[in-house]
């Protein structure tokens, strides 16, 4: 069946939309960041699944192996993961700072809390 070969994209889309839903539907900033991480991981899986070659193995050159998966997406995602955690940490630190200044991490309660300066 032709269309069944696209299932990897559908898994990714499901994960991506779940993350998207969490990001826009929830007001808690920490939960938004978890949602962003889910979204991010779905993009990782998307890239890697694009690079998969049927019957291939990991791209480490060895004797007697002919087919390798595409190494390029692996490289891009490898760095993206570490950069992702660094930026997530930055986001979390901002959330902590927001909590210190405003006493809440709920988006609704934050609205209109800015001091009128």
């Amino acid at each position, binding site marked *: 069946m032709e269309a069944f070969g696209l299932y990897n994209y559908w898994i990714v889309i499901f994960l991506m939309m779940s993350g998207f839903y969490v990001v826009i539907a929830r007001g808690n900033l920490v939960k938004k960041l978890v949602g962003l991480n889910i979204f991010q991981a779905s993009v990782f899986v998307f890239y890697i699944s694009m690079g998969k070659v049927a019957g291939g193995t990991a791209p*480490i050159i060895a004797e007697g192996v002919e087919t390798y998966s595409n190494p390029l997406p692996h490289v891009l995602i*490898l760095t993206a*993961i*570490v950069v992702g*955690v*660094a930026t997530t940490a930055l986001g979390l630190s901002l959330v*902590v700072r927001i*909590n*210190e200044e405003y006493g809440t991490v709920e988006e609704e309660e934050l609205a209109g809390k800015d001091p009128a300066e």
Partner: protein
Amino acid sequence: MSHHLVVRVIAKFLIPFIMLFGLYVQFHGDFGPGGGFQAGVIFASAFILYALVFGVETARKVVPDWVVRTGIALGGLIFGGTGIVSLLKGGNYLDYSALKADPVAGQHIGILVIELGVGITVASVMTAIFFAFAGRQRKG
């Protein structure tokens, strides 16, 4: 968590192995899976485990702030400096073939050195971020 005897003993037992594994991943990254990014994270997780079990203050004595902060910059400098060295040796920026007479050996050395730079930066940044979070008092 420092009052749990089992956790403390096991952590003491595990941390050297985690660090050894981190070094293995760092310097064996050219033959097996691994490299600077993974090794940095593993190394940082050894410090984080230490800080979780023995307290952040003790961990800060083991790895003082200036070590962590120097590490953050040092890794980037090693990476950038490798590029400068290859410039000085007559190649392009980050062209490791110029590092040695034999281009393949030069490439190999270049890859190992910049992976080391990556590893130092990642490990230091992760440790610094964890210390920044863990050393903070709760407010509000």
